[in-house]
């Protein structure tokens, strides 16, 4: 059909009469907040917990929640590493292998070579930092994408793990200090003391921040977000402590996990390094022109994820009382990445929060734990985890598209 024939089919129009007319056009622009924040993940978590509790009344018991905390620790530690690396616009696929190799190294040093615990842990952590720095240096200095570098690392460090574990097969962990990491609990009194101290410290930090803002009045934020942060954190801490104290108590591991999250959260949100991390992930070229060492940030962030993987390796060794060639393997790496992404971390860099990785890991391990409780097989667990991951990312993507459409001009 040609253009003219279209014209001849159209109804006749008088010259000068408007043919197309728009009246009172409006497009409602939702207010552009910074980020959706943790609310969607928390809602998802409530739905998941509600479902499993309705299916099996053992789910929300102190005993099971205590187990859940121990189960999620390794995933959560790795997810924090993933968040840092992904915020800088990179990826680390070697996390699982480094976790396993670190665990095996610790086992070899402690059990086979009879080292004392402090140097063994120091060497294990150093190993993680070394592997991460080397991968970071290759990524940043040579310019090979971290996807490839850490894919190589995944294979090579997996080989190192096999070599370390190979001669002995399974290495038992007998050291009391290492075993305490994932198997001991704070006494009730100490737990409440810690909770009190943390709440006081949080309130103190918020008040100090508020005071520093009000000295120069412009830009001072309203009082309620700070208060809300303190109240919500305090409520979560108190409820968690109440529940856990009715079983064995607050695990050391939970204290460590929360401490790590607070420390890394502070580094990423409140320090110069953290600001540069987000800048490199948001626009690496702009960061470079602003005089930020993009190379330094990338090496540092991969070294940090190597260190966190070594920490996760120590925790795994402690939790399982032994290490072997399979430690840190399976779907661990992918679950850590999934946890970070469910928590709202962008694969393209520049967006993500440490705390949300903790929530994401809680989601992933709640699903695993719940399906275990229902006696479901590994196949069901994998399918469910996969669907939840894609669902979470879809919701996030739709939400973001709506926002950017409203914000762009």
């Amino acid at each position, binding site marked *: 059909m040609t253009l003219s024939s279209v014209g001849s089919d159209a109804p006749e129009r008088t010259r000068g009469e408007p043919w197309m007319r728009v009246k009172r056009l409006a497009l409602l622009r939702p207010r552009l907040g910074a980020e959706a924040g943790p609310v969607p993940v928390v809602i998802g978590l409530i739905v998941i917990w509600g479902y499993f509790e309705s299916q099996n009344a053992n789910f929300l018991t102190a005993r099971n929640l205590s187990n859940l905390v121990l189960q999620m620790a390794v995933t959560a530690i790795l997810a924090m590493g993933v968040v840092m690396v992904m915020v800088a616009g990179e990826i680390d696929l070697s996390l699982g292998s480094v976790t396993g190799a670190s665990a095996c190294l610790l086992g070899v040093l402690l059990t086979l070579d009879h080292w004392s615990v402090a140097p063994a842990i120091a060497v294990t952590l150093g190993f993680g930092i070394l592997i991460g720095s080397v991968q970071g240096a290759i990524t940043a200095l040579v310019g090979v994408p971290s996807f490839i570098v850490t894919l190589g690392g995944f294979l090579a460090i997996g080989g190192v793990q096999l070599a370390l574990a190979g001669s002995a097969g399974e290495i038992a962990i007998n050291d009391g200090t290492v075993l305490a990491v994932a198997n001991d609990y704070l006494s009730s009194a100490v737990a409440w003391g810690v909770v009190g101290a943390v709440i006081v410290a949080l309130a103190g930090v918020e008040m100090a921040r508020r005071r520093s803002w009000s000295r120069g009045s412009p830009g001072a934020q309203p009082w309620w977000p700070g208060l809300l942060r303190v109240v919500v954190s305090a409520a979560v801490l108190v409820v968690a402590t109440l529940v856990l104290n009715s079983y064995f108590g607050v695990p050391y591991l939970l204290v460590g996990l929360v401490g790590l999250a607070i420390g890394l959260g502070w580094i990423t949100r409140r320090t110069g390094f953290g600001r540069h991390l987000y800048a490199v992930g948001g626009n690496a070229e702009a*960061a470079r022109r602003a005089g930020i060492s993009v190379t330094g940030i990338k090496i540092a962030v991969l070294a940090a994820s190597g260190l966190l993987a070594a920490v996760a390796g120590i925790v795994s060794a402690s939790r399982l009382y032994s290490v072997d060639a399979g430690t840190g393997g399976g779907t661990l790496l992918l679950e850590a990445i999934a946890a970070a992404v469910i928590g709202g971390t962008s694969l393209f860099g520049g967006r993500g929060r440490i705390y949300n990785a903790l929530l994401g890991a809680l989601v992933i391990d709640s699903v695993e734990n719940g399906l275990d409780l229902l006696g479901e097989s590994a196949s069901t667990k994998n399918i469910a985890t996969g669907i939840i991951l894609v669902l979470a990312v879809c919701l996030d993507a739709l939400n973001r598209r709506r926002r950017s459409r409203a914000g762009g001009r």
Partner: protein
Amino acid sequence: MVKEYGPVMALNGVDFEACPGQVTAIVGDNGAGKSTLIKIIAGSVRADSGDFELGGVPVKLGTPHAAAALGIATVYQDLALCENLDVVSNLFLGRESLAKPLIGPLRRLKEPEMYRAAAETLESLSVTLPSLRTPVAGLSGGQRQAVAVSRAVLWGSRLILMDEPTAALAVGPTAQVLALIRRLAERGLAVVVVSHSLPEVFSVAERIYVLRLGSNAGVFERSTTKPQDVVAAITGGNALMEGMIG
């Protein structure tokens, strides 16, 4: 102020000067070397040879840090903003105020100080934004341009370079940016503007450098020049020019 360049890949022996309190324009066709010249002065590209002088003193340029230390700031064509960060973070990108206690990059950000300085700078330039905490992704093109210019003003104590500052802007914001450029020169800064638009150049710049194929193709004073002369230098032939007018 004198700046000279020896042969660069994209530049072949270009000479260039900018004076304090004046707007100097660089014009030329695509590929004439305008952006390269700006990038070299800004320190994001290193010249293969050439000498720089600032206030009569020989200086070395070649890194963003060196340029920043000399009081040179740049507004890039792509603005070089991090869209995921808010306005204050972008204004202080790479130059954050940090508190003392801890060592190195793990020092705490002094956010109130930065916020206050950012608000003051924006106010002194009559730039209004919905909120300094908005991520730049939520700003319009003109607002982003204003943020990029304000950043240069915040850090460029002597020389401000602007690569196509109005290319992406509508009429209103363009007029605002041009007024902003005039105000910067009136403050005693040396301002260098790369532009494609001759009317704009004539409305804002005192002196006009023409580049052609990586070399100088003429320097004009606005007061004694007609736009046709500049066009002729850009296209590289008076004959062609006469043909067009005739």
